[in-house]
């Protein structure tokens, strides 16, 4: 059964998630209490596998924001981030039949998100559709709403600084960028990042070491 939150005609996720139903799942014997040591999200995913649409709505509600923010930072384009987030959850849903709780759900979801973002960057699509709020538009006007507490000069310096940060991040190789986004903004541990990127922990340390070294070289003067 396809849950109500996926439009059967378009195959797209609807924006309004259905209310989760802890008591309405197919396997009612598993809808009682979940031990603290269990991965809640994996448990929800197992319920999705077993036909509980409310659990998918809950997963969407819990993880859509973090995934969307991660993808936005990766691709630096709001519309593309939305589109890729949609794709992540469609893939999660389509994979429900084969789901085994062998890894944390978040690691699995971030692995899909990372894969999609790396493909998007690798295909060079970032060069064709680059617009972001801290970037200048074609007519030269900054899209970021100016802060009225700053003078014009301070605002220009601030916008230049943001542009420099964005360019520094964009200048990182895609895997290094993904590692930094997960480490800095999701506070993920090395093992989790390794699971999401699909490499060893020592490789993650190396990615982060090189990424931060490059960022320090470009941004240290901002101190």
């Amino acid at each position, binding site marked *: 059964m396809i849950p109500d939150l996926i439009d059967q005609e378009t195959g797209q996720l609807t924006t309004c998630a259905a209310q989760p139903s802890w008591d309405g799942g197919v396997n009612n014997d598993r809808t009682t209490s979940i031990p603290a040591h269990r991965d809640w999200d994996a448990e929800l995913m197992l319920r999705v596998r077993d036909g509980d649409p409310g659990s998918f709505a809950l997963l969407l509600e819990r993880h859509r924001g973090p995934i969307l923010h991660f993808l936005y930072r990766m691709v630096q384009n709001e519309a593309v981030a939305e589109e890729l987030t949609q794709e992540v959850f469609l893939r999660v849903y389509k994979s429900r039949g084969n789901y085994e709780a062998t890894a944390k759900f978040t690691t699995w979801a971030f692995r899909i998100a990372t894969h999609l973002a790396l493909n998007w960057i690798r295909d060079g699509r970032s060069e064709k559709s680059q617009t972001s709020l801290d970037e200048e538009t074609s007519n030269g006007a900054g899209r970021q709403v100016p802060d009225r507490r700053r003078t014009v000069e301070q605002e220009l310096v601030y916008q230049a600084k943001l542009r420099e940060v964005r360019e520094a991040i964009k200048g990182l190789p895609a895997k290094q960028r993904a590692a930094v986004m997960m480490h800095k903004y999701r506070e993920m541990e090395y093992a989790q990042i390794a699971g999401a990127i699909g490499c060893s922990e020592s490789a993650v340390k190396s990615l982060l070491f090189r990424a931060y070294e490059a960022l320090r070289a470009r941004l240290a003067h*901002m101190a």
Partner: protein
Amino acid sequence: MGCPLGLDESGELVVGYTARTLGPSAQIAFERHLKCCGACAEAAAAQQAVWDALDEWDAVLARS
């Protein structure tokens, strides 16, 4: 003069120190080390600048 910790270890400590992911004793030990190691102190200051810049950039994205 280079850091006696070596590049890999000092790099990891600098990142962990700035991210505040070191344990309490490691944090204190590294703070002591920073007082006598110019290379690490410089790297830690630069890493902090990166950290702050990333925070600022993220705040802009969050407001969008």
